[in-house]
């Protein structure tokens, strides 16, 4: 028997697609359209891929009544120093974390290239390339960047760090963890190749009826996102069980690092909300493929119902993206300010508050949709109230740096950049929560600017800060501080130069999701396109820094930042089995400035 491998997975995917699609062609008697063929083909391709990569072999051995081969199980955990473990069904949470992180950054670059194309089309009034292709690229950029924001910190940093931070050997369900990752490659491939299937022009929001009419690329996107949703739910269950059942002795909930709290709240949101959007997308697929009428008024369906279901997930999703970033930032601030995290219990409470409120604000995306007027007032209220817990993050960060002894290494630069950008995102959000101003701003570039300030400001700045901060732990090597600083300043200047003018464009009346605009907005758009190109160049500096430092950076010590969380008490990178001795914990990891032990969580001797 061939060993499970990526090659076998790809063969499995091709075979699965051929069996699924082929059987419909042969047995369908010409009734089956390309949508049905793609649908069953993709489903079986996904199954074939997972079989080929070996995702089910341990469970199958157990179901079949045989013994799980302990040697195989041990090998699946992955040997240190063997790069091929990254291309296999490896159950070590540190390997899975790096798989997620690298996948997310590759996706970030592809989606970034799509943004470069969009800014090329928008650099001048008139059509430079093609309106239809613009819509497909815009939709693909959105779909991919949403995925980056959803999986990069949670799947990447979260998987790598949470077991280390709570002092345990691995996630609660290592095999399900690997399965969550290996659900992604084929789904992401579907999103990437959607232009070959005719693309889709509905944006990532996929509102019907447009998404019912759109090409096969639309279906590829819907199927891919349902798959990503399944992966997210699996991963959320894993995080919750790990955090609640596997903490080291003495690690009470209120001694957990704030990043672990952020992941816990995020995982709860993922678990509760994701099935709703998966259901909405499935209903939409049924409308397209099986002739149902959930969202077809001509058959008694309702168009606005989709928007309610979609945003019931997709607004919490904004916090699913942002809260891990907030957690990473608050984890980093105390280390570089050399002060305890300010108001730690209140920060935890604010994460929980954000989590609860995030389920009550979805309809602020729908103030001009035609939903009942009576619904405007309560949603406006909850949306404005959620800025109170979100504001606590600023209290914690400012309270920590105030009177601190600040070191401006690259992670701390990104913390400051985060606070400035996320602040603008938060303030401009109030204009979109307030119905009178939202009527003007809905569907304009103001919205585009606002959500880039929150998601780049919240998630991507957090991701950069976290990637630099934990880079020595992940790789055992140090990044180049000079390139890090260059990346920060170039990226930040270019980011603000790109998105600040968009607020003005929106107020002046530039609609979002258009390939063309009035000629008098040409000069500002040209400036924005030039600035956007600089974002791309700044990210290239980051990529060079990461790739070079990972291969040839200077070896680092266990705890270069003198941080107090448990992961820094291990070697860099940590050994395969993490802790040689069970650590015990006696305080929060924020005891800076106290005469007490420099790190409250020692691996016991």
């Amino acid at each position, binding site marked *: 028997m061939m060993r499970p491998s990526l090659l076998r997975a790809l063969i499995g995917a091709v075979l699965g697609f051929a069996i699924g699609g082929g059987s419909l062609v042969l047995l369908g008697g010409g009734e089956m359209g390309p949508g049905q063929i793609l649908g069953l083909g993709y489903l079986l391709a996904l199954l074939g891929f997972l079989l080929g990569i070996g995702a089910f072999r341990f469970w199958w051995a157990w179901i079949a009544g045989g013994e799980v081969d302990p040697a195989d199980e041990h090998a699946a955990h992955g040997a240190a120093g063997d790069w091929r473990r990254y291309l296999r069904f490896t159950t070590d949470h540190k390997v899975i974390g790096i798989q997620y992180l690298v996948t997310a950054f590759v996706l970030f670059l592809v989606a970034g290239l799509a943004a470069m194309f969009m800014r090329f089309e928008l650099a001048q009034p008139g059509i430079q390339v093609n309106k239809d292709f613009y*819509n497909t690229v815009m939709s693909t950029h959105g779909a991919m960047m949403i995925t980056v924001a959803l999986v990069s910190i949670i799947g990447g940093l979260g998987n790598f760090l949470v077991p280390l931070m709570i002092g345990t050997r691995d996630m609660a369900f290592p095999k399900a963890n690997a399965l969550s990752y290996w659900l992604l490659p084929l789904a992401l491939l579907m999103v990437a190749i959607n232009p070959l299937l005719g693309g889709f022009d509905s944006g990532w929001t996929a509102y019907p009826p447009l998404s019912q009419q759109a090409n096969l690329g639309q279906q590829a996107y819907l199927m891919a996102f349902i798959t990503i949703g399944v992966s997210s739910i699996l991963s959320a269950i894993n995080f919750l069980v790990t955090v609640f059942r596997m903490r080291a002795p003495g690690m009470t909930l209120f001694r957990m690092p704030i990043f672990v709290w952020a992941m816990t709240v995020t995982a709860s949101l993922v678990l509760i909300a994701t099935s709703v959007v998966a259901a909405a997308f499935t209903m939409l697929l049924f409308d397209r493929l099986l002739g149902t009428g959930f969202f077809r008024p001509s058959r008694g369906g309702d168009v606005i119902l989709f928007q309610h279901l979609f945003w019931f997930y997709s607004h919490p999703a904004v916090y699913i993206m942002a809260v891990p970033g907030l957690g990473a930032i608050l984890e980093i601030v105390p280390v570089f300010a050399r002060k305890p995290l300010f108001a730690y219990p209140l920060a935890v409470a604010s994460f929980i508050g954000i989590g609860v409120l995030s389920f009550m604000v979805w309809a602020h995306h729908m103030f001009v*949709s035609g939903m009942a007027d009576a619904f405007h007032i309560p949603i406006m209220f909850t949306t404005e109230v959620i800025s*109170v817990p979100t504001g606590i993050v600023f209290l914690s960060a400012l309270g920590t*740096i105030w009177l601190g002894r600040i070191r401006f290494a690259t992670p701390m630069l990104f913390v400051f950049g985060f*606070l400035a950008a996320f602040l603008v995102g938060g*303030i401009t959000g109030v*204009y979109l929560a*307030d119905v009178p101003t939202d009527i003007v701003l809905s569907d304009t570039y103001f919205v585009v600017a606002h959500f880039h300030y929150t998601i780049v400001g919240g998630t991507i700045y957090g991701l950069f800060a976290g990637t630099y901060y934990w880079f020595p732990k992940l790789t055992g090597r140090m990044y180049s501080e000079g390139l890090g600083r260059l990346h920060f300043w170039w990226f930040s200047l270019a980011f603000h130069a790109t998105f600040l003018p968009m607020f003005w464009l929106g107020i002046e009346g530039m609609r*979002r999701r258009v390939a063309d605009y009035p000629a008098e907005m040409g000069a500002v758009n040209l400036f924005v396109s030039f600035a956007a190109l600089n974002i791309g160049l700044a990210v290239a500096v980051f990529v060079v820094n990461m790739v070079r430092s990972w291969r040839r950076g200077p070896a680092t010590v266990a705890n270069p930042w003198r941080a107090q969380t448990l992961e820094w008490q291990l070697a860099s990178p940590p050994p395969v089995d993490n802790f040689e001795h069970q650590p015990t914990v006696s305080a929060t990891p924020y005891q800076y400035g106290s005469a007490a032990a420099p790190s409250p969580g020692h691996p016991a001797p």
Partner: protein
Amino acid sequence: MPSPRRHLLTAAAAWAVLSVVSVALVAGIQILPEIASREAQVEDAAFVLLTAAAMPVLMFVLVGLAYSALRFRAGDDDDEDGPPIHGHGGVQAVWLGVSSLLVLGLFGYGAVGLLEIRGSEPADYVVEVVAEQWAWHFIYPDGTETKELHVPVDRRVRLDITSDDAIHSLWIPAFGIKQDAVQGRTTYASMTVTQPGTYGGMCAELCGLGHTGMTVTVVAQSMADLEAWLHDQPPVPE
């Protein structure tokens, strides 16, 4: 090294000055590019108020960041920690209190504005709007159907909007209205236009290939002129 109290007073003074200056700069300006209706006036006032309220918040965080970056920066060979302050009950309570009050105030103001724009005031004149990929149709009380939208000034006008296919959204920036057109439903937008003239409108909701070009000319005129114009329109072909 100045005392903690001194740091606080210096930063607070910088914040106060910057807040007063920025609020003074914002107050009284017009933010919307064109205002031709009562609704647009309400919206512009909301923009100004939100911007004025945002300035002290913006300045608070920016001053806090800038001051810390300048004054609390450790030397290169300094490896000491800062003071072990884990929190401050008074500061936390004030922060929560002030941010809650600010939010409640903005909510109250927004609710009043919302009622002014979408209150239940009866309409004097109703035009039906039908959107399709990618054109607008306007049907007047006398049955006339046109491709341009003409509305009377100084009257309460309601647009009853629907769509034959995808979701569209009728946006007339100068009138401060934007409302989705949805298949299977009738949505509405009301306005009282105050300035006669010719304005632009467009579709604001992505509706496919022709979305960008789905624009419309809007004319606001006296009731008499509007009736004369309707009289001159060709009858709808059967």
